[in-house]
């Protein structure tokens, strides 16, 4: 079906993939797992005949079907003999925004009908397209083909991308992080679709650091680290008896051993009190719609509150209201005993320092032209009126505490990895000596090992500080389980709130039950 033999990809003399080999069998799911930077995406793209610019490639990638052998060896490689399908992390990214859905599908179908007389080609191509959409379980194909990508739901976009691969007649499909950053129901849907592909006899290559999904879906696992395969085998064997220490570490990381409970210094004194909050978004000139209602919510000193819910449930809006980034709301947000002005601009310096925000996309939150340490130190200068030298010393100290050595943080943001930048962003927030720290999905998009490390560090630091209140916004229930309390949001309403153990293990509200119930992806049918 497809075979990778001793693949080596080198950029500027540095091997990013080295000696990788595995086979993809029809109707089986082969998962490449490993932390970010382990070379799994480069390997996956090699199956598509795509390599990073300026790469030196050796080894062999064979994609075969029914006896025909296409191979690519070295150099800038074009198409292999047999077309390979691709399912990206964000299906919307591969759909041209200015073209209707049928544009690319018809372009794919056109070569398939070339043998027909000219007059019949169009209708035949159309028929192929409609059949592929039906195979991808898309209903009402005719209407759907006339829509633009942005008019489709996420699930429909994903199915359209699958339909493209089916239409192409791919016997091998590469799925690149298809569930990363998705909430649980979405994950379950993606898993179901990929399983359906495998049932059609297609060999699926799954690139993922989401081990839940790998366990639910994969038949074979290839564990990669630093461009090499450290272990491979059937998923049951690798999970039950990992042979390589790195595999064990990867699997342990998923378990999640830390908890914010260690700190101990919880008090009953609320730091943040939210009363009667109703946040709106104005949609053009029309009347505003309320997207979030929080009648009452307290966060206490030394406490970690996890806010969970699906995407679009209003989690981030809540944090933005607290931080003063979203000001179109009614109700009170109190820090200690004073009501915070709604707008950031009208808050005093102490109030600004008191509420700090760490964003999901750490990279976007740094200026790429200045060294990281300078930007971290700036918080203390701006918000606590510390002089620049003193702030610099303090920044280096806090960054070191978070595991970032001084020579690293003297670099610009481009020189740090995603996980390292996220730590720097945490340090930047901590330098304001905040009363409450808002962490918005800070670990989603990171691999399991990095995620665990960051959460561990965060736990320790919060424990050391004692009276810091932490709001952890996440869709990952394993992360939420580390918190003291959990608030569950659904469609802008707080449906359940209570101690983490209670909410996550014996949920009362049906929505929480569905969320918890799907935390483990559905087993393969």
């Amino acid at each position, binding site marked *: 079906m497809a075979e990778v033999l001793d693949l080596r990809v080198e950029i500027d003399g540095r091997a990013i993939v080295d000696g990788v080999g595995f086979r993809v069998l029809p109707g089986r799911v082969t998962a490449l797992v490993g932390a970010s930077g382990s070379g799994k995406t480069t390997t996956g793209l090699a199956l598509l*005949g*795509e390599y990073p610019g300026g790469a030196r490639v050796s080894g062999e990638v064979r994609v075969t079907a029914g006896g025909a052998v296409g191979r690519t060896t070295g150099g800038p490689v074009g198409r292999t003999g047999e077309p390979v399908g691709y399912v990206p992390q964000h299906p919307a990214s591969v759909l*041209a925004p200015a073209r209707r859905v049928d544009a690319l599908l018809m372009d*794919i179908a056109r070569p398939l009908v070339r043998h027909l007389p000219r007059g019949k080609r169009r209708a035949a191509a159309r028929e192929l397209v409609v059949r592929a959409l039906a195979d991808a379980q898309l209903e009402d194909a005719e209407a759907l083909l006339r829509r633009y990508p942005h*008019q489709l739901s996420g699930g429909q976009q994903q199915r359209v991308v699958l339909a493209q691969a089916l239409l192409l007649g791919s016997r091998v499909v590469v799925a690149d992080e298809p569930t990363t950053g998705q909430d649980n129901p979405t994950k379950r849907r993606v898993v179901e679709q990929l399983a359906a592909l495998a049932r059609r006899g297609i060999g699926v290559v799954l690139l993922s650091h989401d081990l839940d999904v790998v366990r639910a879906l994969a038949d074979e696992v290839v564990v990669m680290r630093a461009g090499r395969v450290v272990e491979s085998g059937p998923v049951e064997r690798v999970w039950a008896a990992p042979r390589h220490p790195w595999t064990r570490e990867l699997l342990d990381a998923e378990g999640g051993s830390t908890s914010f409970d260690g700190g101990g210094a919880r008090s009953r004194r609320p730091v943040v009190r939210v009363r009667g909050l109703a946040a709106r978004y104005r949609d053009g000139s029309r009347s505003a719609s309320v997207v979030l209602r929080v009648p009452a919510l307290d966060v206490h000193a030394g406490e970690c509150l996890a806010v969970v819910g699906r995407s679009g449930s209003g989690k981030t809006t809540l944090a933005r209201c607290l931080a003063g980034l979203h000001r179109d709301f009614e109700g009170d947000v109190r820090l200690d005993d004073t009501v915070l002005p709604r707008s950031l601009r009208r808050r005093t310096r102490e109030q600004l320092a008191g509420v700090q925000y760490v964003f999901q996309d750490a990279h976007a939150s740094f200026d790429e032209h200045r060294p990281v340490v300078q930007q971290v130190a700036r918080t203390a200068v701006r918000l606590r009126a510390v002089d620049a030298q003193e702030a610099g010393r303090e920044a280096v100290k806090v960054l070191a505490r978070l595991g970032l050595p001084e020579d690293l943080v003297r670099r610009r943001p481009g020189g740090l990895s995603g996980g390292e930048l996220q730590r720097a962003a945490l340090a930047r927030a901590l330098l304001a000596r905040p009363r409450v720290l808002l962490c918005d999905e800070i670990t989603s998009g990171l691999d399991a090992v990095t995620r665990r490390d960051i959460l561990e560090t965060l736990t320790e630091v919060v424990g050391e500080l004692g009276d810091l209140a932490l709001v952890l916004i996440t869709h990952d229930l394993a992360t939420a389980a580390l918190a003291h309390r959990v608030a569950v949001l659904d469609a802008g309403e707080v449906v359940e709130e209570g101690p983490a153990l209670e909410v996550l293990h014996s949920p009362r509200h049906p929505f929480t039950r569905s969320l918890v119930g799907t935390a483990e992806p559905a087993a393969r049918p």
Partner: protein
Amino acid sequence: MSGLRSFVARRLLLGVAQVVAVVLLVFALTEALPGDAAVVLAGDQPDPARIEAIRTAMELDRPAWERLVDWAAGLLRGDFGTSLTSGRPVAQYLTGAFGPTLLLAALTVALLVPTGVGLGVLAARYEGRLVDRLTSSVTLAVYAVPEFALGVLLVTVFALRLGWLPPTAVGHGTDLLAHPGVLVLPVLVLLARPVCSLVRLVRAGMIDALASPYVAHALRYGVSGARVRYLHALPHALAPAVQQLARTIDWLLCGVVVVETLFVVPGLGTVLLGAVGERDVPVVQGLAVVFGVVTVVLNLGADVIAHRLAPRAGVAA
């Protein structure tokens, strides 16, 4: 699509208001200018009694608002009024001058779009290579030359030195199509700067689009390179260029005064210049109406097309 329809209706209503505002403003400004048509007509015998007589004859002694209301009432019946200085209907001025202007504009746009888009795509395709560097530096250089300077330069070289082309359109009346030679230099001058801005916009948009995952995806699935470039990437890259194109057409239609004057083309720009000089208020107002309508319609068209090319952005009234 109903959202789009109500958007167009709203914009057209707004457009009517905008045209009315332009006419009022232009009327007020011409009134504020020192002197009037009577003074101009009196010519080199500025005898106050004579000027007063002319003023009475032309009804210029009536209050300004009365004249405006009269003129507006006529406009509603499709009557643009009559010229103060020549007594000919304003509509005749407009239709006569619109021909040459439209001809120049149409020729310019017909050359502008393929050249601009083609060069932009070419430069983007070979980003950073010789073709791109050459295109980028030449367009920047040409863009920096104002059109009167370029016009004078072209006339000097091609008309006066080499004698290949006539220097101006003098003596050909409004039927310029019968003498295509006179159109070459004006069209070149009109083309010069718009081509440059269009090339640069298309290039920037195409570079983004060509680097996008959806282009990689289409190529990966075996769609031919040219098809991907022109049918999948280009529509997305054109959205900003369309707005720029609308402004260019607007500029071409609303009297390119400098170029028309330079080449003595009897278009709207020439009429405008003459009318302002003679304080011929009805002609100026007629032109203001035409320019206002053209601008509103073109920008509306550009927004509708841009909405089609970037459907995610929605329409903003």
